[in-house]
């Protein structure tokens, strides 16, 4: 539910006149809520920025998301992250509703 909540908050903040970008863990929910800009990441719930204390990965994800703000494509923009190979510990946690 977190991913829907983020999209709903994002829509309201964008409507208030602020440019917004979000991270999403579930593409299917984000496609329905249609926030203006979202970066889809392949990580488990609780891990939107990949891994704890992996500064390089966290910065790479943030940079990819911030770049969507300068994308000239008309919103909604939903892009998949390219940072698949930067995990230090690749144990994949199963996604459950957060």
């Amino acid at each position, binding site marked *: 539910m977190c991913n829907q909540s983020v999209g709903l908050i994002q829509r309201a903040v964008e*409507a208030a006149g602020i440019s917004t970008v979000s991270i999403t863990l579930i593409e299917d929910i984000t496609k329905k*809520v249609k926030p203006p800009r979202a970066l889809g990441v392949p990580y488990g719930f609780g891990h*939107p920025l990949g891994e704890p204390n992996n500064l390089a990965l966290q910065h790479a994800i943030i940079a990819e998301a911030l770049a969507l703000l300068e994308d000239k494509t008309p919103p909604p923009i939903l892009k998949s992250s390219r940072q698949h190979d930067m995990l230090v510990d690749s144990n994949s946690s199963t996604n459950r509703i957060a």
Partner: protein
Amino acid sequence: MAPLRKLDPFSRFFMKLYRGKHYEATPHTRLRLPLNECRVALITTAGFLLDGQPPFESGDCSYREIPNATQTQALINGHKSAAYDERGLETDPNLAFPLDRFKELETEGKIGSLNHRHFSFMGSITKPEALIEKTAPEVGHKLKTDGVDVAFLTPV
């Protein structure tokens, strides 16, 4: 990015039954300044809060203000959900509220500045009407009043 088929069976079943919000149109505010001149605020639905703030209830649409001066290790994980592994977040709150990463971007001059406050919501909201009608627009208004140009949002 996780498609629904990658969820465990319980969550997939829940998501199929749950009638989520579905919109056709998207609000759009064009970025008016280069990022290195923008004032940025963070919003998380990880349910973080600070010592002394009221705890979140289940399905709570309220929010807590997180001052920019907060040390990330002082953030308390207030998200009442057993649905995910919280150890990562408790080790490093930046995982869902990247305040330290954005302070680094501010120091490097990649963003203009960080706002004096950020906002934390709960994530597990199955009845989001109060969020849509009241609390989310309220946060939008506060950020606008603060002169914020960009909001960066993270789920959990």
